[in-house]
């Protein structure tokens, strides 16, 4: 196969793909629906039903005089209070999640690149190192960071010794939260980027050199575009859970300046009768993320997501 054909295949030219002969339409549609059934059932029971339930709860009203009891209603004030009272929390969530996504990208790209092209026999070991944190629970890992970053822990001690810590402590600051988010979601960024880089044909990159492009230009015009599906998937997989996360803020964050996930948690668990507002907040968060993702994918999207 010529490398020209490779290039056009990577670019997604449909002409190169062999077209399968069309089977009998009748038979095919039945099989397709049957194959869809488990997925549709799954989505119906575990996604649509809870979503409808959440929507119903988000419109309920508190029962006056009975803590923790509700009645069915169309109380859109829940949404109003979610948007007005907690707008700063939403902004903060998106800011921290955005920062964490950016930082994770900065760390993950070179790592994935090294794993795909430079690691050689170390590749499997590096892969294990990236995936290993998943063997322990998310909470435990975050809790471990709260110990590492503690006032009398190693990080704070070194920074204090160097007089690099103006506030005197690193835990219970937004910095610790963003660091925690970056750490926790890093593998979700590394793996998709690695997957798309690993699939790239090194000969295409060589061709860049053959055509007198320098290293940087080759990276910019050949390697990076080829890895865009991975980058897109990685940023989504990092940003979406990070924006809704509350554990990092709870364990590493300050008392003031919470994220929206904490407010939802608090309304569900600590406020008797907080369910409707918590549900409204969840819905608003979901809608906001959906809108952002939609715009993002339209702007940067490619045909294939990994």
């Amino acid at each position, binding site marked *: 196969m010529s490398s020209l054909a490779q290039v056009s295949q990577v670019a997604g030219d449909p002409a190169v793909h062999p077209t399968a002969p069309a089977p009998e339409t009748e038979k095919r549609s039945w099989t397709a629906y049957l194959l869809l059934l488990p997925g549709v059932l799954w989505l119906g029971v575990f996604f649509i*039903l809870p979503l*409808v*339930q959440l*929507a*119903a*709860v988000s*419109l*309920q*009203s*508190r*029962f*006056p*005089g*009975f*803590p*923790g*009891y*509700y*009645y*069915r*209603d*169309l*109380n859109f004030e829940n949404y109003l209070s979610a948007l007005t*009272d907690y707008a700063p929390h939403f902004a903060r969530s998106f800011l921290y999640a955005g920062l964490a996504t950016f930082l994770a990208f900065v760390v993950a790209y070179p790592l994935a690149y090294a794993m795909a092209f430079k690691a050689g026999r170390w590749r499997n070991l590096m892969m294990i190192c990236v995936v290993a944190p998943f063997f322990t629970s998310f909470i435990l890992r975050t809790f471990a960071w*709260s*110990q590492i970053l*503690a*006032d*009398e*822990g190693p990080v704070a001690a070194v920074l204090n010794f160097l007089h690099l810590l103006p*506030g*005197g*402590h690193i*835990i*219970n600051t937004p910095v610790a939260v963003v660091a925690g988010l970056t750490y926790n979601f890093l593998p979700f960024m590394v793996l998709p980027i690695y997957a798309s880089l690993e699939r790239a044909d090194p000969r295409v990159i060589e061709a860049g050199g053959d055509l007198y492009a320098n290293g940087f230009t080759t990276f910019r015009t050949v390697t990076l575009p080829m890895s865009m599906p991975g980058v897109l998937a990685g940023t989504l997989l990092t940003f979406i859970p990070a924006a809704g996360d509350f554990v990092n803020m709870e364990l590493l964050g*300050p*008392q*003031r*300046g*919470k994220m929206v996930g*904490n*407010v939802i948690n*608090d*309304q*569900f*668990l*600590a*406020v*008797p*009768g*907080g*369910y409707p507002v918590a549900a409204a907040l969840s819905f608003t968060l979901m809608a906001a993320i959906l809108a952002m993702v939609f715009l993002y994918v339209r702007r940067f999207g490619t045909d294939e997501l990994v």
Partner: protein
Amino acid sequence: MTPIPRRARRPLSPPAAALTQAASGGLSRRALLGTGLAAGTGLALTGCAPPEPPSGGAASLDLPTDLSDKEKILKWANWTAYLDMNGKETKSPTLEAFMQKTGIKVTYSEDVDDNDSYYAKVAPQLRAGQSIDRDIFTLTDWMASRVIRDQLCQPLELIQMPNVVSNLLQPLKDVSFDPGRTHSITWQSGFAGIGYNKEKVGRELKTLDDLWADDLKGRIVVLSEFRDTAGLVMQAQGVDIESGWGKAEFEKALDFIEGKIEDGYIRKVKGNSYMEDLTSGNAVAGITWSGDIFVLAYDTEDPNWTFTIPESGGTLWSDNMMVPITSTHRSNAQRLMDYYYDPAVAAQVAAWVNYVCPVDGAQAEMEKLDPDLAESPWIFPTAEFIADNNIQSFRVLDADEDIEFADLWSTKVMGN
């Protein structure tokens, strides 16, 4: 015997009592949430229907079959640092002895970090009639009141618990939320006050205002239990927290706490996990519970950990053992409750947890174990001690206040 006066709760006001009575009726969160799908699909039909008052007559309780005879097991949810432990903190000597004596295998877990979060976690399951895999849970008075009102715990057979009947301290025999103690048995009582490390702070802390010093900025942790934290602040602001105050006084205290968080004095507002902040050194002082600080001193082998009641006063509360409504090991649970009301056993626990012991006769047993501790006002407080230190119980809130105050606390202090 050392009676603890002023422990008994004020009875609910008649309207509050009527409300709580009605609330134990048929309406449940599950019933309302359970119709969510209908609500979702039939929104247009249901519209803004006015609330239907919860139906009156309490449904008869169906207690699950007690399998205690067949299954010699018991699962107990409790708070951190709340049971005697051996050196390595892996086993409790009194619990081991109980298991030997009865052949019941007890699983002890420190599940409860905070009343609200524990209740929010288990209440929906209990209302749905599901097992929470626990046979005893231990919750504070006001939450025990809610659990009993919502019929989420089983009635107890006092006749099976002779030690409890004869040794429960007189003032605790008739509490407002559980007259005659038919649903709950006191585990321990305790105080909220100032806990701090004398060496790290470098001086003695005597008043609540001593916490707001510039050299302690950012090294203070306070309790997420608002009856304790706001209670202490209100006392410092000159409020008698046992009666005669309302939303204005409460909000004033919250504004004060909010200010201290914003100015960076208070580092964190936490449940029982505040002990981790004290251990790790993130905090050196705070509003804490009495026994925890003694346990901390023992665990860290640092005698500088000190607990004191601020000059303006402290709070007194009790935690209560209850059997969840879906537990199938009620008899086993009752045997355990009765066991811990043996004065000798109670003294052993008290010597470790350093909380107020609710068992009559434990002080005499403590004389044999540790004469110093038998004199400790933190375990066996006298009436004078309570009165002299202005130790009070936070007044009972009615159902509406319960929501309103929790809401205020959540928005102003907990999450912002």
